[in-house]
């Protein structure tokens, strides 16, 4: 009868009120935990498994006793923008320096963040070419990627800031081989001609590759290593000339939390911390770390600074309308569209 429906209605409205009250109550508590030292770590997605080891190890040290962490991982650019938009962070670790510079501009990170012994970097890697187990297409370097019939995967350099490492690795390698900038750009055009998929992130690109698409995937060494460890049927080739990928870390803000945060960053840069990075496939930024010898040094290793630094490179190559890569994509698209 009416009673059943009335009961339902009152029950429903009562539960709604309870839920709203609960929600308000929860928000009043907020996300900050009072008492004890709590640090907010905001990082890009790849080093998540490394921090799973680093944080407990830090907690075992005298500096780290009683320190709790709230952790957030996601695409480097997104995370950086989130912090700029108010996401609480005490330490940030991103894939490339511009994501930290954004926070300097927002007044959250001190402008002297990279004036230390490691220039602000906490881990390194190199750009590599991932191929199928057995390397059926015999890919040994950048020049093989522009051969006809070779299908290349690389994440979209416009949706994935980290993917820009790949493009600059390829470009810089051409310069290293003695080509002129114009010839290097021609190489990039030929490379993108062979690109058959531009996933929105490195992880997605790897997924696509593992699903059977493409012959070669441009990726980072630490990704290749951890993927091999998981049993994927892949190999990777370190080209003779390739770029050194340098991942920055920085303390956000000032005050007591910042002091503790700095202690954590110091641990990350200590031999003990760096040994954990190495165990997960990252190259260390300090010398003398056990296990670092397993990383071969490419003879033609170069950094982004040799190409002008990220500020210049971003403007020159990735500007949405005038960038070199933008123009390449457009020329390829317009000619091959439809």
């Amino acid at each position, binding site marked *: 009868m009416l009673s059943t429906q009335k009961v339902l209605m009152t029950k429903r409205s009562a539960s709604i009120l309870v839920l709203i009250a609960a929600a308000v109550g929860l928000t009043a508590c907020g996300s900050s935990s009072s008492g004890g030292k709590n640090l907010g770590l905001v990082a890009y997605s790849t080093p998540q498994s490394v921090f799973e080891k680093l944080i407990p190890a830090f907690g075992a040290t005298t500096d780290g006793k009683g320190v709790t962490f709230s952790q957030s991982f996601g*695409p480097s650019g997104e995370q950086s923008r989130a912090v700029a938009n108010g996401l609480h962070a005490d330490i940030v670790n991103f894939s490339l320096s511009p994501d930290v510079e954004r926070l300097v501009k927002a007044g959250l990170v001190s402008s002297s963040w990279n004036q230390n012994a490691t220039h602000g970097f906490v881990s390194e890697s190199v750009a590599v070419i991932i191929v199928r187990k057995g390397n059926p297409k015999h890919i040994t370097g950048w020049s093989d990627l522009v051969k006809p019939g070779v299908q290349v995967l690389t994440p979209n350099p416009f*949706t994935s800031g980290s993917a820009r490492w790949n493009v600059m690795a390829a470009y810089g390698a051409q310069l290293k081989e003695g080509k002129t900038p114009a010839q290097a750009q021609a190489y990039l055009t030929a490379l993108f001609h062979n690109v*058959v998929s531009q996933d*929105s992130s490195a992880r997605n690109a790897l997924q696509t590759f593992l*699903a*059977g698409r493409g012959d070669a995937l441009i990726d980072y060494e630490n990704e290749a290593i951890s993927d091999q460890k998981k049993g994927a049927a892949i190999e990777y080739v370190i080209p003779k000339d390739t770029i050194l990928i340098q991942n920055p870390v920085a303390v956000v803000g000032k005050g007591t939390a910042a002091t503790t945060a700095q202690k954590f960053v110091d641990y990350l840069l200590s031999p003990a911390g760096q040994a954990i990075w190495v165990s997960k496939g990252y190259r260390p930024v300090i010398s003398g770390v056990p296990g670092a010898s397993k990383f071969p040094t490419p003879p033609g290793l170069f950094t982004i600074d040799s190409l002008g630094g990220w500020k210049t490179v971003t403007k020159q190559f990735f500007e*949405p309308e005038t960038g070199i890569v933008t123009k390449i994509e457009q020329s390829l*698209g317009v000619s091959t569209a439809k």
Partner: protein
Amino acid sequence: MHLGTRGGGMLGKGLLGIYLTILVLLPVAALLAKSGTGGTHAFWREISNPEAVAAIKLTLIASVIVVTINAIFGTIIAWVMVRDEFPGKSIVNALIDLPFALPTIVAGVVLLALYGKGSPVGIDVAFTRASVVLALLFVTLPFVVRSVQPVLLELDLAMEEAAASLGASPLTVLRRIVLPTLAPAIISGVALSFARAVGEFGSLVLITGNLPFKTEAGSVYIFGQISNENLAAAAAVSVVLLLAALLVLGALAYVSRRRSRHVL
């Protein structure tokens, strides 16, 4: 029902209005404002960018194809769910909402595994424009079905039986009685499908390959612009897609209203 003619009605309408403001009006206004920073010149330049145009075109054409397929198959499926009986029907009925409840990344991974290279059923459409249609069909599956089902459930069989006993063939009954009654629901489902298809992002990123000018959808292009701090461009293209969706929704609403005037 005389709604809103007395105090209680005003309070109700006020609450509705506040809810709508917080959830829709303010964010959409902010979006419009963002798209306009830089003036109309910049807006025009941003949306006439060749890559943007290609992405918008792909999204709109794919969405039209998808909603057409949905209108037909969604109605058929709803019909079978309501009027038919077979073992396992309730299970199938319960599953229909799944494409909706699954995070889009799962949809993407699964579709790639099923209909990409190494497909267990031998269908490989990954990284083609067809893959855009496939992914969108998956995520918009429930809309027409769930829109038509409630109407079918409430439908009075007496009219159809009367028509049949008067000698109308099943086809005539379908055309003259059932479809016109279902039309508003089908149109409603189509509107939802179109809106979702135009905005869909997550399920497309894996299976389409996101190749600019070839398989890059509007939402992926927008995401790229956001990643480049090009918020104004992202907002501008979003506004264009939104306007296209609103046009279609508006047209559908108009058709729906006109139809309802002709129903007995």
